C-alpha cells in the first residue's frame, strides 16, 4: 500500500494575521506545518513501524512556495518522497480535491491522510471531497487507526460522541488531536531528508479551477466591554458580576 499524506504550511496559531487589500497577507508571518496534517504524517509512519504493509509514504503539498517547508518537515519526520504542485492560485477545497485525487491515482495510493480542519481556511472539506472524487469511503476526525491487510479500523468522533469503525482500503482518513504525538525531526534525519526527492509538478498538468471567488476579507473584532472587577473581596465581586450579567448584559434571569 502507498500512503499519500497531505501537508500545508499555515500561520502559526499565535502569529499576527494582517489584511492587505482584500486578502490575508502572510508576508513576514511565522508559518508552520499545519498541526492537523502533522498528525497524518506521524500516523503514516506509525502504521509502517507497526507492521502494516506500507510500500511508500508520499507527502503532497499544493500551493505557494512556502509549502516546501512543510514538505521538508514531513521528509525529515520520515516520509519517503514529496511532491509539490507549486501555485499561487487560490483554490477552494472542492476544486483542490480534484488535484489531490489525480495525484492519488497517478501514484496508486491506497490511503490518504489529511488534517481534519485546515488552520488557514478553517475548512473540513478536503478529505470528504477527495474521497467522493475517488469513489472511496472516508473516516473523518479519526483519533485511533489500525490497518491489517486491506482492512482499516479505528475510532472517530461524530456529532454526539464517537464511533468505532471498520472499512476496506482504499480510503481517506482525516486526522486530529489524540491520534498520536507527532515526532520532532532529529538532526540526522533532517540531513538525510535533504537527499530525498522533492518533485515539483507543473500546476498545468492538473486542470482544476476554483469555483469559489474571494470577494474580500477583514479582521473584525467585536468591541468588548473589558469591564474588570476587583477580585480581592470575593463576595462583592461575585455580587457585582451577577448584577452585571442580569441587568447590563441581560444574559441571566
Amino acid at each position, binding site marked *: 500500500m502507498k500512503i499519500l499524506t497531505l501537508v500545508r504550511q499555515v500561520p502559526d496559531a499565535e502569529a499576527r494575521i494582517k489584511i492587505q487589500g482584500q486578502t490575508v497577507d502572510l508576508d513576514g508571518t511565522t508559518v508552520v506545518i499545519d498541526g492537523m496534517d502533522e498528525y497524518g504524517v506521524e500516523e503514516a509512519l506509525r502504521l509502517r513501524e507497526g507492521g502494516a504493509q506500507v510500500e511508500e509514504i508520499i507527502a503532497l503539498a499544493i500551493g505557494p512556495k512556502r509549502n516546501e517547508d512543510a514538505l521538508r518537515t514531513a521528509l525529515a519526520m520520515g516520509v519517503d518522497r514529496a511532491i509539490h504542485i507549486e501555485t499561487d492560485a487560490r483554490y477552494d477545497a472542492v476544486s483542490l480535491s480534484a488535484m489531490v485525487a489525480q495525484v492519488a491515482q497517478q501514484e496508486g495510493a491506497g490511503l490518504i491522510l489529511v488534517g481534519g480542519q485546515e488552520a488557514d481556511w*478553517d475548512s473540513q472539506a478536503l478529505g470528504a471531497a477527495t474521497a467522493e472524487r475517488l469513489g472511496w469511503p472516508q473516516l473523518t476526525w479519526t483519533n485511533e487507526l489500525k490497518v491489517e491487510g486491506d482492512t482499516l479500523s479505528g475510532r472517530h468522533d461524530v456529532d454526539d460522541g*464517537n464511533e468505532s469503525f471498520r472499512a*476496506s482500503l482504499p480510503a481517506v482518513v482525516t486526522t486530529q488531536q489524540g491520534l498520536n504525538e507527532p515526532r520532532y525531526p532529529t538532526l540526522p534525519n533532517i540531513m538525510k531528508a535533504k537527499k530525498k526527492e522533492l518533485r515539483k509538478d507543473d500546476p498545468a498538468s492538473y486542470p482544476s479551477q476554483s469555483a469559489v471567488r474571494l470577494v474580500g476579507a477583514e479582521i473584525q473584532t467585536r468591541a468588548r466591554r473589558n469591564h474588570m472587577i476587583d477580585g480581592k473581596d470575593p463576595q462583592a465581586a461575585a455580587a457585582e458580576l451577577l448584577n452585571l450579567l442580569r441587568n447590563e448584559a441581560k444574559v*441571566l434571569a
Partner: protein
Amino acid sequence: MILIVAEHSGGSLAKSTLEMVTAARASGREGPVTLLVLGQGIGAVAKEAAAVADQVLVADLPALATYNAELWAAAAAQIAQEGEANTVIIGGSRSGREFAPRVAVKLGAPYLEDAISLSSEGAALRAQRYTYLARVTETVEAEGPVVVVSVKPGSFQAAAPAAQAGEEYDVELELPAPRVEITGRSVEKSSRVALTEADVIVTGGRGVGSPENFAAYVEGFADAIGAGVGATRAVVDAGWRPYAEQVGQTGKTVQPGAYIALGVSGAVQHLSGMGKSKNIIAINKDAEAPIFKVADYGIVGDLNQIVPALIEAAKK
C-alpha cells in the same frame, strides 16, 4: 427549490434546522423552501418540519436509521437533481460538514462551507465565513445551476412556524451500500443542555486545578444558573472531562449569549471556538491571561473563593 437537509435527533428537529430555514429565506434564492428529512421512524420530525417549511420530503427507511456520510450525500444529491434545486443547504455540524463536500462533488457544484451569512449578488450566492482560526471574516461567492452551502450553527435566528403548514411527500431513494461498518458507538450524553444549543456556557480550563474542582466549580456554577458545561483542550487531554465538552479548534464551536470561562488562559485555538460569543466573562488569577483581552467582564482573583461565592449568590 431550496433544499435543506434537516438535522434532527431523539425524535425532534434540531434548532440548527430552524436556523437553516431562516438562512434559506435570507439567501435570496428562488423557489419553495424544502426540508428533506432522512431517517427511520421520523413521522414526528416531519410534522415539525412541515410547520416551518413550504414543503417536506420524507425518506423513512431502515437503511437511514443512523447517519452515514455516503448515504446522506447520495440522498441529498439525488433529491437535489430530481427537484432541480438551485441551492442545497446542509448543517454546519460535524456530520454536515462531512457529507456536504460529497454532495457538491456529486452535483459538480461549488461549495460554500460554514456560512455565517447568505445573500444573492446577481446570479451569485454570497456567503461570509470565518477563516484563520476564526480571526478573519472572508466573503466568498459562487454561482452555478446549483450551489451547496453549509451553515454555521448559531449564525441565524431560528425560524418560527409559518401560518400554514407545508405539504409532506414521501420520496424514493436509490442508496448505495454503506462501505463503512460501525462496530461500536459511544454517545456522550449529558443531562445538561447541549453545548451547541446552550445560551449560557460555563467552561473550565487547567486553572480550575483538578477534576474535583471542575465538578465543584464549573458544574456547580453551571447547574446554579442552568448553563451548559464546556472544557478546554488541556482539561480534556488531562482526562478530566470527556471530549464532547471540548470547545475550540479541535472541539466544538459555540456562540452563546454568555460564555463564562473559569481558569481559562485563552489560547488562540480555544478562542477560535468561542470568540464569537455575545458576552465573554473570564475569571482567572493571572491578570495577563489573553482571555481578558476578549472579555466583556473579568475578575482577576482566586477561583476557590470567587466561584463558591458566585454559586451561593446565584442560588439566592
